[in-house]
């Protein structure tokens, strides 16, 4: 749905270059003339925020890598060296460590936005699946990054998570040994995690390009969940409209981010990670970083190890099948009063699972985690397919322009 290519370079050199490699035209078509639905709300600024966060992680990460030493004897010390001796090293490290959390805050909002407004439905299935792939790569990147400072949680988190692979029948132990590069998490593990932690963000960047490409083919969804019918009436050019709105959204997000960097830099981490890794001392509670907690709760809710591993990975992979699990003809939850209730219950269930993931797996915590796990999967496998068939949606506006008119009309009435 790229707009008509109106780009004409103003200089002779520009025209010479454009006829050989039309990259400026591509940029112009993607970020200047690109038509955006005129009814987008601030939840649509998170794509831009995510792109910014990826860039920020790559830049701060490259600087950290200049001073970091991936060796079991030096890794912890090299991070302290960054914090104490490198100019602005504390700033770079706190920006990177909290940046990972902010990246996940943004991606969760971005994904829930998609879930609420039905952005995974035709024609955006491929776009959505590319997003799920990005999310998986982010999880892998964040996990390996957390191992690098080689604190107690780094080491024991890595041990717990890599051990999960040993649940695979027959080949599990061999796979785990292969992942470790030995018989436990040790120097070879740290080295390969560093190598992969450096590599994966660039793979993410590659998939992000595909994701944006797919987006520009099918166009953005919008709060009304109806497709663009008339470019003139339904959309506005990306620049200046989306540019300035995205910029405002991004700066507000940066205020939130900066609050953590400067005023609560260790809040989202775990104190045990300031203790150097020690294979002989197991921490009393091994907890992953907050953004994995709901999945960790699902893992521990299932009484069998293999079952838990399957459920945990299944909880993520199931997202890729959403376009076919949801049978509703209407996209946006705005016009689906019953779905809306189940949606918010789902959000609560995820938060609840997150809390339970941080608690020891005993007594009432386990029972609660089991109930919420049932709801998590029930939401996708039972509620989504059935609700589309039984729910009576509210009338959907004929076009984006009509949706905007209805809203403005209502606002005008409220004012008078």
């Amino acid at each position, binding site marked *: 749905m790229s707009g008509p290519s109106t780009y004409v370079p103003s200089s002779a050199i520009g025209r010479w270059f454009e006829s050989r490699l039309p990259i400026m035209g591509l940029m112009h078509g993607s970020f200047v003339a690109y038509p955006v639905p005129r009814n987008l709300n601030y939840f649509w600024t998170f794509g831009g925020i995510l792109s910014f966060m990826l860039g920020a992680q790559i830049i701060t990460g490259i600087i950290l890598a200049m001073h970091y030493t991936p060796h079991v004897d030096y890794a912890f010390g090299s991070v302290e060296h960054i914090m104490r001796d490198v100019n602005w090293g504390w700033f770079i490290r706190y920006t990177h460590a909290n940046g990972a959390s902010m990246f996940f805050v943004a991606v969760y909002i971005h994904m829930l936005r998609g879930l609420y407004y039905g952005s995974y439905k035709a024609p955006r299935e491929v776009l959505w699946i590319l997003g799920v792939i990005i999310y998986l790569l982010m999880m892998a990147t964040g996990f390996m990054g957390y191992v690098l400072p080689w604190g107690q949680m780094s080491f024991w988190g890595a041990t717990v998570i890599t051990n999960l692979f040993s649940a695979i029948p027959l080949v599990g132990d061999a796979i785990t040994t292969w992942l470790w590069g030995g018989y436990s998490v040790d120097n070879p593990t740290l080295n390969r995690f560093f190598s992969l932690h450096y590599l994966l963000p660039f793979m993410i960047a590659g998939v992000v390009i595909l994701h944006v490409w797919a987006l520009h083919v099918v166009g953005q969804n919008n709060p009304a969940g109806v497709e663009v019918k008339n470019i003139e009436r339904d959309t506005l050019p990306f620049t200046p409209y989306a540019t300035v709105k995205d910029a405002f959204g991004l700066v507000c997000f940066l205020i939130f981010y900066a609050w953590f960097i400067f*005023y609560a830099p260790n809040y989202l981490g775990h104190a045990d990670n300031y203790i150097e890794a020690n294979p002989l001392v197991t921490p009393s509670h091994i907890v992953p970083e907050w953004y994995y907690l709901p999945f960790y709760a699902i893992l521990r809710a299932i009484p069998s190890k293999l079952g838990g591993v399957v459920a945990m990975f299944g909880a993520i992979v199931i997202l890729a099948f959403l376009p076919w699990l949801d049978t509703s003809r209407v996209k946006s939850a705005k016009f689906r009063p019953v779905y809306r209730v189940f949606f918010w219950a789902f959000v609560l269930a995820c938060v*609840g699972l997150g809390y339970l993931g941080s608690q020891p797996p005993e007594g009432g915590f386990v*029972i609660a985690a089991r109930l919420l796990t049932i709801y998590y999967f029930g939401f996708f496998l039972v509620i989504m397919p059935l609700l589309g068939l039984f729910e009576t949606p509210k009338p959907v506006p004929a076009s984006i322009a009509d949706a905007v008119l209805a809203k403005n009309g209502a606002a005008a009435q409220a004012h008078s």
Partner: protein
Amino acid sequence: MVHTKKISLVAAILAGALAFSMSARAQDHAHATPTPERQSWTFGGPFGGFDKGQLQRGFKVYREVCANCHSLSRIAFRTLAEEGGPGFSESQVKALAAEYKVKDGPDDKGEMFERPGRASDRFPAPFPNPEAARAALGAAPPDMSVLAKARSYSRGFPLFLVDPLIQYQEHGVDYIYALLNGYTNKSDQNWNAYFPGNKIGMAKPLSDGQVEYTDGAPATVQQYAKDVSAFLMWTAEPALEKRKKTGFRVMIFLILFAGLLYFTKKKVWAGVAH
């Protein structure tokens, strides 16, 4: 009406799950150690900074007491003279470093030798390795360089959500302060109210009058504990003052920038229906 039923089912499941976890929490609380009390520190809050006098006193306590057992291996002497620290002069630091013996080498004959410390050296450890410390003391004393960030305690729901808002980030120092004052069982020097399990390998390290203060601060266990805890916050986070100062400028900039963008956005969008 089917809808209402489904909705109430969902609500019931969620409420049940919540109730279960609540009751589990209550059980959990019954045999936990008491929660350390929140202290007021000069370095708390958005404008917090270290009290130089307190850091100097805390350093004295560390040097005369804790250093017998605890290493401070990641801290270089020179940092004692750096911005945002205890504020010793360069010559004081030089003289102080020279009081320590530092292992160096090998020399031209291939021998290791000892020489007086320099400002660029790090604090030498009291024991050659943790095993030696454990052999001598029964338990290995942790290195103190980042100890104040390596200890924490849970404030539970919902306080843990409030902490980042009110910028309460001193859980670790509060724990250390409580621990040093937690030897409340007179008949057992190794019983500590705040240590998980109550049996601590470190016998009560401080007693009144043990360290001489020259600035008139009271020579009590409480005061020592307060000062040495503050000192440990500084060793763990030497850039704390700079971080908070920078943060304030960044915040002002971002808020003004956001304000300008807000009005620009309003202006740009004013003419179009959206």
